[in-house]
């Protein structure tokens, strides 16, 4: 089973990006996409392009910051990192996700 892009809600993508940056530190867009795919064991067949509007949105809200850097194989790339506001947001969203999924799980089990 795999998820198509439309099933990945916008908020979920945001959460995934924040979580990824939290665990691997500053990273460029390609790295983030790769990481999300690896972690989801390729279940998440996401168009990598959709990542960029999301990154832009997160940056506009001040949850992540970006600056130009150089990649491991000497390529110029834009690196994103989590800000303090972003970390707070991650904690909040993770909690609300837990609550939400816990609730859905309970509902699914009882029926």
């Amino acid at each position: 089973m795999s998820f198509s892009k439309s099933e990945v809600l916008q908020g979920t993508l945001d959460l995934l990006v924040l979580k990824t940056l939290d665990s691997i530190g500053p990273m460029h867009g390609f790295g983030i996409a790769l990481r999300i795919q690896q972690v989801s064991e390729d279940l998440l067949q996401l168009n990598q392009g959709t990542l960029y509007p999301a990154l832009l949105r997160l940056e506009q809200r001040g949850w992540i910051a970006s600056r130009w850097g150089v990649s491991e194989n000497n390529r110029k790339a834009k690196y994103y990192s989590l800000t303090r506001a972003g970390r707070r947001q991650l904690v909040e969203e993770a909690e609300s996700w837990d609550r939400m999924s816990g609730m859905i799980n309970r509902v699914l089990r009882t029926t």
Partner: protein
Amino acid sequence: MRELLRTFVQRLAAIFRRRQLEDDLDEELRSHLEMAIELNVQKGMSVAEARREALRSFGGVERTKEMCRDQRGLPMIETAWQDLRFGFRMLRRSPGFSLLAILCLTLGIGANASVFSWIEGLLFRPYPAVVHQEQLFALTGTALGEADLTSWPDLLDLQRSCTLVDSFIVTKITGTTLSIGDRAEVTTGSIVSANYFDAIGVHPILGRGFETGEDSGRNAHPVTVISYQLWKGRFKGDPQIIGKTQRLNGVMHTIVGVAPEGFYGTFVGWAMQFWVPASMEEVFEAGDYKLEDRGARWIEAYVRLKPGVTLSQAQQEISAVAKRLANDYPATNRGRDIKLWPLWQTPFNNARTLLPTLEIMLVVVVFVLLIACANVGNLLLVRSFTRRNEMTVRLAIGAGRGRLLKQLFTEGLILSAFGAAGGLLVAQWCRHALVLLFPARGGVAMHLPGEIDWRVLVLSAAVCLMTTLLLGLVPAMQTSTIDLAGALKSDAAGVVGGGGRAWVRSGLVVVQVSLSFVLLVGAGLLLQSLQRIRNFSPGFSTHDVLCTAVNLVSVGYDAQRAQTFQDELLERVKALPGVESAVFARMTPLSYGSYSSTPIAVDGYQPPPEEQPTVQYNEVGPNYFSTMGIPLVSGREFTRVDDEKSALVAVVNETMVARYWRGKNPIGERLQVKGRWMQVVGVTKDSKYESVREAPKSFFYVPLRQNFSPTAGLYIRTALSPGSMATALTREVHALDGNLALYEVITLQEQVDRSTSPQLVAVTSVGVLSGLALLLTVIGLYGVMSYAVSRSRRELGLRMALGASASNLLRLVLSRGLALTAGGVLLGTAAALALTRLLGNLLYNVSPRDPLAFGWALVVMTVAALAACFVPAWRATRTDPARVLRD
């Protein structure tokens, strides 16, 4: 919330960094793809395969970019910006149209902004240098409901008793003469209370204002603060000016301060040049000491209310004090109240005289603006026909009608914004235009500045927006009726006289005609009223009498010397060839500066309890009535016998006889003035004293010799012109004393004309504006007729081919134009019948429905309409049937 704001700011910022962000995005995506390809190659794919795979998993580079762009900026603002740029391009493409439209709007909005700036500068915020004008109100006494001035003792009592008033500010316009060479120049100034400069928050740039106590003690403080212009002009900006002395009305005054630049005093209409404390009142009020006289009402005053106090609260408190004063001092204060006025209703300066004119002008400029809008609307409409193809194509390739409307409104906004900018320039330019309508009196020009402040700007912007909406309506109607299928087929050419959407344009023209017809009627009524006022006999001769004065006080003549001088000069003047008679008298009729008024008592007249009979009077020399041409009804003139040594006498007018003697012949009866009894020796016909529009009022005369004043005017009955008389007079005056200066010599008719300048202002301003309106209407009519003719060339050609003669066609087009005009005139007549009542008290002896004015407006309108239609009609007759039918 903070995030939303932050997002908005970032998006906004992104609009201005567009190019750089675009490059960044390109670079970022490129680096993403390259990394992906590299990785795929490492996995063992060929380069081409690696690229394909990378692109596939990326999923559409351009799409991603587009999504990023939407996320990045503010699409709404960006489309607005696009519309704006497109709008500018469209306007540049048809410069003739754009210029005409902007010109019309500039005139329309400019007229509005000018009137706003005058209203602001003269009525609402008349004293720009004064702090917190919103707490400033004018104060006058009232007698039987009529505004009157106040007295110094009354004002001191108010000051002691009122708790809601921050300060009472006394000012009284006065004048002195600064003689320059052999010409005397009147300089206006103010007699003020000592708190004046502190209370209005104006701080002299040199020296000081007045100090507490400088307004008390009879003639105790001969000090003066001079205006910036006087300092720069007459004193050449002397930095050591403080402490120097200047003779004012014969008394040496020490200059203690120089007022800041841009401060013109607190009297709408005149720029004050000097200020003296109230203690010097006697010197400036013709030797009449009034500071301890409760009955002498001479003060023009303002109050500054404490913060938060309203007009009605303060009025209550002040009225209570006035009532107490009326009780305590019945002899002087019976039946009197004291009243506060908003600045724009100030009764004692030119605010009052200009108020009705400015109100009318406000209505008139709205009309002008509507006419201008109709014109531009018509232009837009005509253009929207020529742009039909463009609109149709844009609709066809998927533009929403909303988007199209937004585009059209944007174009309207550009036009009206240009119009508003131009209009503000016009207003700035016209700031001092009102002054041009007032003649300079005795060399002192009036000061009537407009004021363009933020309130005027806001109001003009509102007018501009309203204009945009009005303009937007027209093309909006147009696009909503475009139907794609129909527009593909070519429009059938219109027919002169109807068809298509011509009714919108015709309707606009009819409205224009009716609006300008109303204005023409108004101008006609005012013009007639002015003529009647000026030709109306004021009760004295206006053409054969000259008036002037010699300034004796400012060079230090005392009463004795002045009297001798007057006698000698009179002898010399009477000996001049062409002079019939000459006389000195204290006041000139119809001049600003009121006559003395005094409480009187009459034998056998018992005043009702609430009334203290008070009558104005003038001090005049022998043969005054025959010189001035004021007819005597009975009794005799004053003669040389009525001097200091003989019994006191008076001459009264007919209204006074009717009022106080109930029409009985008063000759030989007694009249008490200021405690002195005098015998009535003559009765004159009524004449006009302070204004040609005043109702008949009681008035009396006393001999100048028995009530001497050195500030008397000279009146000469002669057929000579003012110019030649001035030369002769100057010679005679200098023969007596080389230091003396003569005021300007004018006819009494000139004096009448000057006193009616508010009417002149009304006529001129409404006249100019209705001329403007007429011009705009003619342009509109011309535009519509030319367009109709050019659209119906085929029809015209056909008619010609079928045998219509040139005169047939001429008549066809002209009659169409005249039909529109007739419709407008009908509508305008109805509107004018309802609206001319607004002219109210600007009209003198003219009915607001005067048929002459309506007829006059009809003639002007018809001629203008014929002129506007003639060129298009003539062009219609030049249609070449062969060519038109072939096309």
